[in-house]
């Protein structure tokens, strides 16, 4: 019947094949010629998670861990699973009210959505952790604990040396060429920062599959593309943590610093600064608050005075002046100067001693710290007949200073070291015009006053150079890196002996003998240590603040024992008076502690206790503190009013929280409200400022 329709079979076949061809072409364009879909699929389904390895541990010279890792816990919440949770018990354990509880949940939802866990309380205190751990089954699965490793300083000292880790800021991101990512933690100061590359280890990357609700569902490709995190390497340092502890206790209530170096190695034994703080305060939840408090403190506790405090060295400079003159052949150890209480040729500076013969030779001049002697010696150096020109003389002198490590950064393995300052001809030509000055005008340089500025670290290093009779290693903390290989070049510069000058040993011997006499029967007899020959020099540094003369800085440099020096020390106590009064006994105690491992006699212990108790805060700092405190009182009262106001608003938000439309609490009807509406309702009630204020606490 329908035979004549046979041809229509072909038509139908062609239509079918045509349609299949269209589908095939479309598939080709989707799967072969459009690359965006692969990326879209991975973006939405694969989470790239960075795994942070444990940071390296820092050990002191006796193998004690002075910067360690401990594990703290965050309490996490998944809001969508809150149903049936015993909120009352939880609130009681955490010591919060239900309003606060609800506020935190709102925060969590806004931040991370209902289905993803967010931090409910960061870094639980040990007792809260214990209580929660016991009762956790009541709150699961909505609540769980998440480990978070944080840094810990078991000895509570060395804040300035060890530094702290903190979240990287935008500047750091840029500088690292986006090696770091937002939210990463990195060393921000101290050894944590300098040895960041060693301590941080290698970050691992985990690829995690997630579903459409953003929940993790497993490893991508069984972890084939994951890279394991490599733990940070440990650092062995020269620090003696007990000496460091003693140093910090001695300097704690004063403004100043203590630097102790091992001369043979350049290893820094201790570096304390006062006032200081407990480094544990800058870990964990309280970081921002504590940091702000330290940052705004007029006594500048964040300043590492051992490296960043710059002062004229005062009389502690005199041994260096003597060495320059001896090397230039301007004086001999037996050369003397008749001082009658004032340096005659220039009319200044004045001298503490007036009696004849207190500067009859080099040794005595050091022991008695004769200003006239060293003003003269300095003038001899500047007006050196070899150069016929005071400018050339001064430049030569500056060269010597530079060789002693003054006026430039030493290259210590800590960030933000100060260079200090040694004036040159340019500076004086600027002040006095060219030719307007002579050796007399600048004679105060000879006694370590005037325009020159040094850091305690530089002075301690200069002592090392004298103790070693002509050479030093760049002062540094780190002795070795765990599993050190040839690729670790970071320590290389600390292992090269630096011999900048070739002054004969006899010259050193003369100066050292003088320094010995300082302790035996000179200006610092209270620095004596039983059974150990100490070589030292005191300094009493005149200083000005806003052109107003302040109380003198108390300076002291020393090394011991004389024959085989094991420790070189520089102590500065700001505005504390004579060098012998405060700095000398502190330095002496530190040296004894290091050399004998403990303070030998009860008398010495009592001496240490006496110094620890004394508080010496400069008047200028006390003044600034007073101003700041009165400002704070005003601020506090404003804050209190604001808090009361917010408390009132928070009660309103509680009522909002009670609204069953918003919550899925067990006793309430379940009824979901879409997110945007929820947010708009909440933001109408809670001021934005308040939400923002909560943010940092949870983030840290």
């Amino acid at each position, binding site marked *: 019947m329908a035979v004549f329709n046979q041809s229509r079979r072909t038509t139908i076949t062609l239509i079918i094949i045509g349609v299949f061809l269209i589908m095939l072409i479309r598939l080709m364009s989707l799967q072969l010629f459009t690359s965006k*879909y692969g990326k879209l699929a991975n973006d939405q*389904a*694969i989470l790239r998670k960075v795994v942070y390895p444990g940071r390296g541990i820092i050990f002191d010279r006796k193998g004690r861990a002075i910067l360690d890792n401990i594990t703290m816990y965050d309490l996490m919440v998944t809001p969508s699973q809150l149903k049936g949770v015993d909120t009352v018990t939880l609130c009681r354990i955490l010591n919060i009210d239900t309003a606060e509880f609800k506020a935190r949940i709102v925060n969590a939802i806004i931040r991370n959505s209902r289905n993803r866990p967010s931090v409910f309380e960061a870094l639980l205190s040990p007792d809260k952790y214990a209580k929660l751990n016991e009762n956790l089954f009541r709150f699961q699965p909505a609540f769980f604990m998440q480990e978070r490793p944080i840094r810990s300083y078991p000895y509570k000292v060395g804040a300035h040396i060890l530094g702290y880790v903190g979240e990287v800021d935008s500047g750091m991101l840029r500088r690292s060429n986006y090696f770091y990512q937002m939210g990463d933690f990195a060393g921000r100061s101290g050894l944590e920062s300098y040895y960041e590359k060693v301590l941080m280890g290698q970050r691992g990357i985990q690829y995690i599959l997630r579903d459409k609700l953003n929940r993790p*569902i497993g490893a991508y490709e069984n972890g084939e593309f994951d890279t394991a995190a490599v733990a940070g390497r440990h650092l062995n340092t020269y620090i003696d943590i007990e000496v460091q502890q003693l140093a910090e206790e001695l300097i704690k209530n004063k403004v100043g610093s203590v630097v102790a170096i091992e001369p043979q190695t350049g290893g820094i034994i201790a570096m304390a600064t006062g006032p200081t703080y407990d480094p544990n305060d800058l870990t964990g939840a309280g970081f921002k608050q504590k940091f702000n408090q330290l940052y705004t403190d007029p006594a500048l506790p964040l300043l590492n005075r051992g490296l960043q405090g710059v002062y004229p060295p005062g009389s502690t400079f005199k041994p260096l002046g003597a060495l320059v003159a001896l090397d230039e052949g301007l004086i001999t150890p037996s050369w003397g100067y008749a001082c009658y209480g004032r340096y005659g040729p220039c009319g200044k500076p004045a001298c503490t001693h007036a009696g004849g013969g207190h500067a009859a030779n080099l040794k005595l001049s050091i022991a008695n710290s004769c200003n006239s002697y060293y003003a003269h010696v300095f003038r001899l150096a500047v007006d050196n007949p070899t150069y016929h020109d005071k400018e050339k003389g001064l430049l030569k002198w500056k060269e010597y200073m530079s060789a002693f490590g003054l006026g430039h950064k030493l290259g210590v393995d800590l960030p933000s070291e100060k260079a200090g300052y040694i004036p040159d001809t340019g500076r004086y030509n600027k002040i006095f015009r060219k030719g307007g000055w002579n050796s007399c005008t600048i004679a105060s340089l000879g006694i370590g006053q005037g325009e020159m500025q040094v850091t305690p670290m530089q002075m301690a290093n200069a002592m090392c150079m004298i103790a070693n009779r002509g050479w030093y290693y760049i002062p540094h903390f780190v002795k070795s890196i765990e599993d050190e290989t040839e690729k670790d070049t970071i320590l290389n510069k600390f292992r090269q002996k630096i011999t900048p000058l070739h002054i004969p040993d006899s010259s050193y011997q003369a100066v050292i003998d003088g320094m010995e006499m300082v302790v035996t029967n000179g200006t610092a007899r209270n620095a004596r240590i039983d059974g150990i020959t100490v070589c030292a020099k005191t300094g009493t540094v005149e200083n000005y603040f806003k052109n107003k003369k302040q109380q003198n800085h108390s300076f002291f440099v020393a090394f011991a024992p004389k024959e085989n020096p094991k420790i070189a020390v520089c102590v500065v106590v700001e505005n504390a008076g004579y060098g012998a009064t405060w700095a000398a006994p502190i330095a002496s105690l530190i040296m004894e502690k290091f050399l004998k491992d403990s303070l030998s006699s009860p008398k010495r212990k009592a001496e240490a206790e006496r110094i620890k108790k004394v508080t010496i805060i400069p008047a200028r700092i006390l003044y600034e503190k007073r101003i700041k405190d009165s400002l704070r009182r005003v601020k506090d009262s404003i804050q209190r009013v604001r808090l009361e106001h917010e408390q009132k608003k928070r009660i309103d938000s509680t009522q909002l929280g009670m609204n069953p439309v918003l919550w899925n609490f067990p006793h309430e009807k379940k009824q979901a409200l*879409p997110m945007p509406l929820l947010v708009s309702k909440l933001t109408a009630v809670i001021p934005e400022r308040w939400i923002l204020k909560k943010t940092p606490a949870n983030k840290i």
Partner: protein
Amino acid sequence: MKQDTPTIGKGVDTTLVLLYYLLVLVGFTAIFSVEFRQDDSFIQSLLQLKKNYSKQVLFIIISSLVAVFVLLTDSKFFTTIANLLYTGGIFLMLLTFVIGKDISGSRSWIALGGGFNLQPAELCKIFAALALAKYLSRQETEFNNLRSHLIGIALVLAPALLSVAQKETGLALVYFSFFVVMYREGLPAIYLILGFSVVVLFVTAILLQPIWYYLFICAAGLFMMLFFWKTIRRNFLLFFGIILMVLLCSGFKYVVDHIIFDKVLKPYQSERVLSMFGKSYVPKDPERIAQLEKEKASGKRKDYTYNVKQSKIAIGSGGLLGKGFLKGVTTQGDFVPAQHTDFIFTSVAESFGFWGSALLLGLYLFLLLRILALAERQRSTFSRVYAYSVACIIFFHVFINICMTIGLMPVIGITLPLLSYGGSSILTFTVLIFIMLRLDIDRNMILR
């Protein structure tokens, strides 16, 4: 050719049976890959019948039993019972309006107990095919006049209309596949051309701004006048006919914008259709505008294009070679909604890439061409019409389903034959195919 004892296997077209099981197997693997997670126990979940893939195994076994049963029947049985089945099917569809069960928005299911549900509209495809075959193979049917055309059309469109009433637009669309069958049996091509023209006009109405649309229609009218100039000079009536057609087509724009999108289709359907052409749905009906505003204000507004976006991401990310079995991240992350049923193709395309999906298309094409070849070797009109119906139903399903997943068609709930999860779907296609195989065994008989 008379057979006394029916034996299974004798005379059965093995190619088709093989193809059938190949596709069913692909379907099982695809469903498995949608649901299986790394830490699941395969054997346990297979035995407990808790997962969809384990249920699918059960459906396949049941279908195979039914297939054997179908092969054991007498081929005359189907011609005899065709009209009865058709009437029963229509009755069942009407019954859903009374005792229907609401599953995902359409009242087209009848609960059978034990967690299983039956969708009469699915079964009605078989019955409609049988009824059409029966009607066209009647001795007295001369399929060359308008009356017989209209009866044929009414036969296939009745279940379609009922499907629309049940809000199963996708299934209704499948019944249009019978037009291709009728075309093969002598339905003038003008019906198909007209239908095609309406589709073209519809797309044009969506794509063009009103002014360009009217210009396009006028240009088309002028072109036709020039083309038929000689005829118009002979018969001036044609001139008015063309004018009338231009006016009608111009009015069609209004119908599309204000009636089809604003009244007939639901807002989400309108949005899906328009989004295919890169347009966004702007309702003109004040009621709908108000509703839209309300949705926008409450933030309740869903992204109705989410399905097709995710589907395209899954398919597109497969690339040339695919990501490998059980390694599709979009599949594993549950991103594509209804992936084990309507969007099962995405799972294949993501895991096995272009090669896999092209191979699957090839399998379907082979299946269709094989059925056409089978149809043409029938001596009986009944068998031929029925075989064509099977081919066209499968063709429409594959075409609409795959085009929907690759963004060539709006999202319509329609399964991929033999691959999609679901007892109704797989059983329907099994019965469809195996009745045809049964008829094919007796291909030399002339059935009435």
